């Protein structure tokens, strides 16, 4: 009996230690970035363009990032949602579905550097879009497609079959059933998917680095090149140009991510129709 208690207690100690470590590392990173980064943050830093080697702010870079986010979401959301609808609502179990699923999963597992390579070959070179916001967005769209498909799929699957049967049983057509009953219930999931994708886009560096280029100015259009926050930060750190500005950029990135996470939860919850 006490043997069992001893074992139990030792195991518990291990578990607590591991958890403490996890949370500790996170806190450490956040605090470290905050302490070192917050000093450099100023209105000017946020509202001016980079200058020279190490001067200036990050406004154009923030705007480039927003461009890429917007474009990627506009491209990937309909495709992702439609694909999920097909998989959940129409596809008959069989080869084709298995292939689609496998493809989606593979896509999710492909490292961003490969996307970068591919984007570089295909969009930048073959389609001759050059280093541009559009090349970046197209590459990222493929990259976030699995996230979109999967989160939408999950939320479609979470819609009880009873709703579908109920609707069809009333004589509603399939499309109507999807539009009026299934999709509304899946909206929170879809929104979560979008927000998660935004998070990925914001944090992505390798793929963007190869496709959107690294010019530090404001992109003049979708076909113009421009670096994003993550790339900016990588370059600052890698080249050792300015650790202060790198910290500040890291801080901005982290804050954005925090905001995204926070709103993902809130928006998802507020849209949930099944909660009474």
């Amino acid at each position, binding site marked *: 009996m006490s043997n069992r208690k001893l074992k139990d207690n030792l195991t518990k100690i291990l*578990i*607590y230690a*591991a958890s403490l470590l996890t*949370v500790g590392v996170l806190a450490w990173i956040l605090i470290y970035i905050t302490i070192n980064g917050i000093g450099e943050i100023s209105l000017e830093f946020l509202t001016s363009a980079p200058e020279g080697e190490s001067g200036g702010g990050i406004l154009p870079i923030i705007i480039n990032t927003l461009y890429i986010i917007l474009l990627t979401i506009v491209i990937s959301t309909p495709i*992702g949602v439609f694909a999920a609808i097909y998989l959940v609502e129409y596809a008959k179990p069989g080869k084709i579905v298995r292939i689609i699923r496998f*493809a989606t999963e593979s896509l999710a597992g492909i*490292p961003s550097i490969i996307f970068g390579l591919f984007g570089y*070959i295909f969009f930048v070179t073959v389609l001759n879009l050059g280093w541009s916001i559009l090349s970046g967005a197209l590459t990222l769209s493929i990259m976030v497609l699995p996230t979109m498909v999967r989160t939408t799929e999950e939320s479609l699957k979470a819609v009880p079959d009873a709703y579908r049967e109920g609707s069809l049983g009333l004589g509603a057509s399939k499309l109507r059933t999807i539009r009026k009953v299934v999709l509304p219930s899946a909206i929170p999931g879809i929104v979560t998917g979008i927000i998660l994708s935004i998070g990925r886009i914001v944090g992505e560096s390798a793929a963007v680095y190869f496709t959107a280029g690294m010019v530090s100015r404001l992109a003049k259009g979708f076909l113009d090149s421009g670096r994003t926050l993550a790339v900016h930060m*990588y370059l600052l750190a890698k080249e050792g140009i300015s650790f202060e500005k790198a910290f500040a950029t890291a801080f901005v990135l*982290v804050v954005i991510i925090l905001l995204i996470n926070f709103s993902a939860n809130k928006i998802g919850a507020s849209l949930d129709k099944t909660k009474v």
Partner: protein
Amino acid sequence: MESREEIRQSVKNREDSMEENKLQNFIEKIVENIFFISACMAIISVAVISIFIFYKGGPAIFQIGVKEFLTGTTWQPLGDYFGILPMIIGSIYATIGAIIIGVPIGILTAVFIAELAPEWIQNIVRPSVELLAGIPSVVYGFFGLLVFVPFIADTLGGAGNSLLAASVILGIMILPTVINISVTSLNSVPKEYKEGSLAMGASHIQTIFKVMIPAAKSGILAAVILGIGRAIGETMAVILVAGNTPLIPDSLTDPIRTMTANIALEMGYAYGLHQEALFATGVILFIFIMILNIMLNLFTNKAGE
């Protein structure tokens, strides 16, 4: 008489609605096809990616020679030496290191979150872990560069940019993947199992390790495989802390260069065979990842049964 009139009327109504329905059926068909094409985008993407990567990188492998390319230990693009064995080994070592650090901690933390933590602590830890997942990898790299690298240099000697630093950073980076998926699969273990075990007088810890973790086994395995994928594919963070010397490391404190780093570092200025050799590195990486994906697929399919 009246009833016959009624029948006639109802037949007519039915014919009317048949017309209406043909149109509706047509629309439904078209929309379904749109959905189908969207669903095929994933297949198309994977196919196109594979084709282009192999198309660009495949020929180089044969030009260099499969054996030379895979087992050559020297990488000197200027000298036309394109052996990527150091990079392959670097990737594998770093990944193994990440697993050794990240998996046990991750699973134990998952157990803590799913089972032991009181609700208010859970409410702190879970979002923290999600946040950990959201932090851009460059930030990790940057943090590693400024914290671990100097620390290793100071305590263990060497430059600090090393296999160890890469492993630690990757270990931390796979934590959220391992934790989140493990927690999800632990939580999806029916609470009936837990109740059943406790009701028989098994202790909570016994219950967790004898019933819940085995029941969540396939989910946890999937988490580990995804973690491996993430570690092997990570680029920017690794570049920042690994030292990037294309040599096979002898010790934990030696610098390493991973396949991903190899590509990212030199792509900017490479041309000709050099550039193709980088694409070829991508091919090898791609093959690694595909093998992992297939393994993952096997596991998750098994879990579904």
